[in-house]
């Protein structure tokens, strides 16, 4: 009641984003669900290793191959390690790989694509040919090759995942920058004395964000799958480090003998993570697009 009329628009602007987020979540419950899952994964990654009931590396041969029970929610593996603890602890590693590779390719691929679309000419040619070269390989095989050549480290998995995603980012950013290079507001920015790079980064880049956000979310799921896949075939993280891909690989041998839980729970978690990021993409796009915020 004490608010003066002049302060009203400011308050409105502050709550605008929250209200908008609430609107998106309520309008599309699937988006809300994926936001919830995302927060869960985030929490597991941040505090997981401190709250899990068992040490993920401690083996207990007496309790080996125990099915899911109250003591071991997801059961135990052939060495008696608690699968629930391992799944939760693995979240941090898998998410780190995914986020780091996506952040890397977002910056590098995004910038390359923006420059290609905006400047055209030889910049466009160079970026275009790099994309073509990468796309010429089956992406997973290329990632395998990179990791095999550079060595079996987390850094190289991040690098390989980023490289195979490069064309996706570069092409989307290129298309978005290209349609705007002669837009009225870009001309106006030139008249305002903005240099070319400032126009590209200050004026055009923000307009490409909504679609790039969708791209981030979609490739985040792919990056997780890629990292797990590399580990699955033995080219990524090495055992006994808890990692979803390795756990599925280790459990695969026991499915035929009936111990389904060893591969099942890490597999389901992997699926949920990919699923969550794919759905998140749509929600994110709505959140960052000012046109939808009315």
């Amino acid at each position, binding site marked *: 009641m004490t608010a003066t009329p002049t302060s009203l628009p*400011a308050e409105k602007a502050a709550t605008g984003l929250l209200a908008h987020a609430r609107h998106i979540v309520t309008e599309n419950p699937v988006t809300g669900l994926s936001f919830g899952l995302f927060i869960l994964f985030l929490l597991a990654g941040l505090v997981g290793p401190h709250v899990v009931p068992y040490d993920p590396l401690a083996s207990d041969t007496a309790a080996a191959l125990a099915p899911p029970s109250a003591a071991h929610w997801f059961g135990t593996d052939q060495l008696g390690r608690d699968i629930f603890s391992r799944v939760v602890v693995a979240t941090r590693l898998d998410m780190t790989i995914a986020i780091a590779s996506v952040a890397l390719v977002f910056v590098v691929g995004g910038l390359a694509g923006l420059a290609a679309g905006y400047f055209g000419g030889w910049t466009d040619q160079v970026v275009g040919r790099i994309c073509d070269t990468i796309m010429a390989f089956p992406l997973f095989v290329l990632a395998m090759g990179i990791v095999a050549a550079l060595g079996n480290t987390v850094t190289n998995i991040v690098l390989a995942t980023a490289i195979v995603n490069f064309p996706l980012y570069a092409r989307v950013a290129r298309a978005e920058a290209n349609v705007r290079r002669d837009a009225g*507001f870009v*001309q106006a920015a030139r008249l*305002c*004395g903005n240099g070319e790079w400032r126009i590209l980064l200050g004026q055009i880049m*923000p*307009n490409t964000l909504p679609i790039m956000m969708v791209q981030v979310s979609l490739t985040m799921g792919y990056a997780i799958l890629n990292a797990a896949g590399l580990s699955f075939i033995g080219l990524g993280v090495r055992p006994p480090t808890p990692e979803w891909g390795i756990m599925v690989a280790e459990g695969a041998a026991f499915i035929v003998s009936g111990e389904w839980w060893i591969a099942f729970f890490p597999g389901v978690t992997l699926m949920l993570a990919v699923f969550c990021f794919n759905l998140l993409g749509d929600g994110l796009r709505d959140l960052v697009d000012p046109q939808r915020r*009315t």
Partner: protein
Amino acid sequence: MNVHTNHPPVPLLEVRGLTVEFATRRGTVRAVEQVDLDVAKGETLAIVGESGSGKSVTSYTVMRILDRAGRIAEGSMTFSGVDLVAASEKQVRALRGREMSMIFQNPRAALNPIRTVGRQIEDVLKEHALAGSADAKEKAIAALTEVRIARPEERYDAYPFELSGGMCQRIVIALALACRPQLLIADEPTTGLDVTTQKAVMDLVMELTRARGMSTLLITHDLGLAAAYCDRVMVMEKGRVVETALAGTIFKAPSHAYTRKLMRATPRGGVTLRDLLPEGSDLTPPEPRPAAATDGTPLLTVTSLVKEYPKKGVGLTLARLMGRGTDEDLTPFRAVDGISFAVGRGESLGLVGESGCGKSTTSMMVNRLTDRTSGSLVFDGIDIGAIPARQFARSPLRRRIQMVFQDPTDSLNPRFQVGRAIADPILRMGTPMNGAALKARVEELARLVGFPEHLLDRFPHQLSGGQKARVGIARAIALDPDLVILDEPTAALDVSVQAVVLNLLQDLKIKLGMSYIFVSHDLEVVRLLCDRVVVMRAGRIVEQGMTREVLSNPQDPYTRELLSSIPHPPV
């Protein structure tokens, strides 16, 4: 309020109490409310209104092509005995095209870009079983001949992008009329076309409809056009019909206040800028800025300016490399062909011509966004043409030459709050100032252009067209430029908004002592705003002189043609 003087008893189209609602995120919006309208056989009715008046929604509803969010809430529509509200989609589809058809605003968008125009006409004929594969081509060529397309046999194989805007609109008309419908709905058929093309297209539509005894529903924002070509005029405001009258009477004795306001705001001969404003506006002229001592030289002198574009294409590149190809293929296209003119200090110069005449290219060279091929551009003693466009952003002269763009929506970054857009030139080129001083300056500019200060933190899509135009103007004058290029700044605005913006521009010019180059195809607007005028055609200047003289006593036949094409209401 309907005037039923020369109506036959049964109208072809009868709409009663039509109400259309749209479901939006913020609830239901009524776009059209209680609209009654009749179109008799052979009659031409114009629906006139500004954007948001519901004129287009009315026509879409009649055609039953409302988008999914829209719904007919109330009312009845009868078209030659068929109840259009109750009719099934299948029944309506049979009517569409054959019994009633529509011409859209943007002819290029209405044509399939990857199909030849002849084939597109054939498609319509075949769809309605009016032609078989044997005689389709013949009938399509006949349709092209009818809309006066020169060399129809050749044009039959042309793609839409190979034809001019006026030609495309003729093709669209040919498509619409191919099945000899009884009712033609023309939704802003000439918006975006040149005034001479507009006249040709409208004359054609009227002649064809008259010859076939068709009825026409013309949707337009241009009262002059409506009155010049239609029997009756219906004026809409905010979804409601405010007045329906015979074209002759509506101009002599407009009965509704809104019609009077609309008529006042329409630029026409014998009025001043102030006359366009609604009655009771503040008409005090602004305080002129004391003129700085000058030596009488013009601010900008353009001499023999040329802009060439090389022709493109793989074949041509090869031909050029191998030293082959005809001379015609290899000579570059001259968009601007050696023009010379001057802009005095505090003067406003009109740059007039039809699309493709080189007026926009000229303005882009003057504001240094495009490089010239040859010639000189002397601005205040310096040849700015010699500075490459890419480097001009860093030149101290950049802040002295600014521009207001044609499309206020396109010229504002959708992701910036408009206050930030106005502050942009100050941040880049102004004297460095702190946040509070910058905010104060932006607010001062907003006041200067009459933009509500509390809207400065809005995004462009939350503002109206007129408000966005004001933001564009505020940004252009933020650094007190000497020369402002106005590229059809009111082309995208409603007439009443245009009247206010034109007056604002005039006041600002006097207040700040700026010079204007006003690029336009609208001679009536140029007459009101400009001291001198340059008429361009095909890259050359055909005539220049004082506006009054050129427009009242044109020397060049082309200027005369332009002037005679402006639709004049029957008086």
